[in-house]
């Protein structure tokens, strides 16, 4: 299918600050990323029982009211939603959860005297990881007493939502941005667990991602070696490529992550590209696009970009912009130069 796209729509000026703050009002705003490196022994899993249910996102209600935001309203508007994606603790609810994590005994990940789920499995959260080809991680999450629950997964600044099934099980294949890859899983009752995975081949792959909330429907597009829309080298949601393609050095692949069926969903698209196994050399151009729809037109949008570099750094930039007004419904918003083009040398 050959797609035609209208010219990029100029972004309109100005962000509705209060609107954005209200939209993403529920924010616990703490992060375990800082402490994660100090707990490598926690692998493969550490679990914390939900002993303080008042920490659930809904009830914690760390709202960014107008008063909170008064000192620097622009910043308040930029707080990502979520259950804890903010990289700096704008508001720490007593720092209770990190302490509980630290006190958890990694040797006893499963509580013995716990109640059982309807299927007879002991309650409690377990998370395990397994390294997969192309620096992917198979993440297995099980909390038998929380079926059909909203799950938040955090990794290197990436925040995703998933949903457990009727058995309380969720599996996700996630492209890793760092090795060792550290994952934190948060359940709605406040339980958290973390796990590590080592990815020996991570240096072979370049990775870029964009993460967004709700119905903004962002798309990541990769144009490999001069490909244009609709050609085989145009890798995006409708032409995702494959891991085999990357392993063969032919090109990259797109991964769509996250469950949109939960409340306040956090979704991402990640493009993986082999750094130097290719026959061709040149440039892969990257852009972020979004169809302007009745659901997102004129809306302030929060997103986040992630990029790896050859030094092993992950560049995370929080991003805000306004989707064009509703008279542009049906057109595409094209955001160029937010991601760096990938430059590739042939072997």
């Amino acid at each position: 299918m050959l797609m035609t796209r209208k010219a990029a729509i100029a972004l309109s000026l100005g962000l509705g600050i209060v609107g954005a703050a209200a939209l993403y009002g529920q924010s616990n705003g703490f992060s375990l990323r800082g402490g994660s490196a100090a707990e490598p022994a926690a692998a493969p899993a550490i679990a914390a029982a939900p002993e303080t249910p008042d920490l659930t996102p809904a009830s914690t209600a760390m709202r960014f009211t107008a008063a909170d935001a008064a000192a620097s309203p622009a910043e308040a508007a930029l707080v990502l939603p979520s259950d804890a994606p903010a990289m700096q603790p704008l508001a720490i609810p007593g720092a209770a959860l990190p302490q509980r994590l630290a006190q958890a005994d990694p040797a006893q990940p499963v509580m013995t005297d716990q109640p059982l789920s309807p299927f007879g499995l002991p309650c409690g959260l377990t998370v395990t990881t397994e390294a997969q080809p192309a620096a992917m991680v198979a993440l297995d999450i099980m909390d038998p007493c929380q079926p059909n629950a909203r799950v938040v997964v955090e990794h290197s600044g990436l925040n995703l939502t998933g949903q457990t099934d009727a058995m309380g099980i969720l599996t996700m294949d996630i492209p890793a941005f760092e090795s060792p890859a550290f994952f934190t899983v948060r359940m709605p009752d406040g339980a958290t667990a973390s796990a590590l995975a080592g990815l020996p081949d991570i240096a072979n792959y370049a990775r870029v991602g964009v993460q967004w909330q709700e119905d903004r429907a962002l798309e990541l597009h990769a144009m490999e070696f001069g490909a244009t829309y609709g050609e085989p080298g145009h890798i995006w949601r409708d032409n995702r490529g494959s891991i085999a393609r990357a392993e063969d050095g032919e090109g990259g692949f797109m991964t769509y992550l996250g469950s949109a069926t939960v409340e306040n969903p956090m979704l991402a698209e990640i493009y993986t590209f082999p750094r130097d196994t290719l026959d061709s050399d040149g440039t892969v151009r990257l852009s972020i696009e979004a169809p302007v729809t009745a659901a997102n037109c004129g809306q302030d949008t929060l997103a986040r970009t992630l990029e790896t570099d050859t030094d092993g750094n992950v560049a995370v930039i929080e991003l805000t912009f306004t989707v064009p007004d509703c008279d542009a419904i049906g057109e595409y918003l094209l955001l160029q130069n937010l991601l760096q083009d990938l430059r590739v040398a042939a072997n």
Partner: protein
Amino acid sequence: MAALLFLISGFAAAAQDVSLRSHDGSVELDGSLIGFDGEFYRIETIYGPLTINAEGVTCRGPGCPDLENFVAEIRFAGAVAITEQLFPALIERFAGSRNYTLRREILDANRSVFSLIRADGGVAGRFYVTGTSTDAGLAALLGREADIALATRQPDPVEAAAARAADQGELSMVARSRILGLDALVPLVAPGNPVGALSLEDLARVFAGEITNWQDLGGPDAPIAVHLMDVATGHAQDVAARVLAPFDLVPMAGITRHSSTAGLADAVAQDPFAIGIGSYSETGNARMLPLQGSCGYLQAATPDSLKAEDYPLTAPMFLYLPVRRMPQLGREFLAFFGSQEADRVIRRLGFVNQAITALPLGAQGDRLANAVVAAGDEIALEDLQHMIGAMSGAERLSPTFRFGDGTTELDAYSLAAVARLARAIERGAYDGRELVFAGFSDGQGRADANLRLARGRAEAVRLAVIAAASGGDLNRVRLRVSAFGEALPMACDDTAAGRAVNRRVEVWLR
């Protein structure tokens, strides 16, 4: 003078929005606030602009800044080639190196504000980045709508005069500019194009419309489609000034113009009969053509040839600073540009950084071949033997110093190279070694005069480096001067660009 008077009276008529009073009440100044950097007020008064330490005065009036919650704000404006990918990447790494979180708010298609957030959630600074053109960036600097201009070319005489008139000082001063990294103007063709190299003159004639068919360049019988950047960009102005003007040519009508070097490269890559002048940093999927002198020397754009300015169309990226003080965070950001972390970002994005590299002189066989070809009437065998003896076992450092025609005056990039080399000497990078400043000239004029000129230039560079390395122990490194005149040409002497490449002082490390 008339312009200056007008400005002063213009400001005098403006609102007196701040009043600064010394703590003992003996001095009081009224004026309008130009800026506050966290330490100093800068106000426009009837006496002209003044900078006043905030510790010594109390500020009253509606224009007074909030001292407690000061956030450094710096406005950058200029060339899209810098703002679109390089500058955001540098800001990201700067933020990362200081453990700041970075938030980017897209205000408009070509305008973003980057907020650097401290771990406690406070805002350390906001960088406003506007991508327009070098023209607009320099104009914004003079009009005080920007604090720092990002330029892909140096200010022209009109802009330099405007800066003086606007009380913005001398833009050509080293202290006013920084070189961010290096780029170059490069001819681009589609990967399948059979032409292997072009002379500067042929290139100029193609873009002037004097050569219109590939057949005239050794290619197929097909019309040439020509691509350049938009007229308002510093890039296109640089092409007109450095590629066409030396041959008294101007760009033809009917050139396909582009707003980004990436777009230009993509368009050229898709058309086998297209040629464009793009950027070394953004060749995309197109192929770079080396330049060929009429006497046969090939010059390709490579990291080494750009660092040494051996490639004649090297194009440094400049930052132009205001005459006033920068906030602390701004000064730190400028200092960051000289770091290895910044150098890595610059390299990753396809530009060439200014980190000093060393190449074995023995590996440069093509240069020796040039020397043998050039030997003859004026260069005797013993001259060559002297030079080759001096080169053996030595390495050539990337900093290379270049001069105006017939002068011993260094160009802007060479002045930055003096500072880089001086810092390396101060660090002790060459302790116990010998640095030879090897002077060369072009082949115009008599060989003995050229030899004297080459020696004078080498000595000028040596003295400049010694003066700049005042913080180091110069007893630990030997700094010597040698001159070889026109003995080792790197480009043909029949063009101004070629002669400029040949007039140089190299640094050899032994």
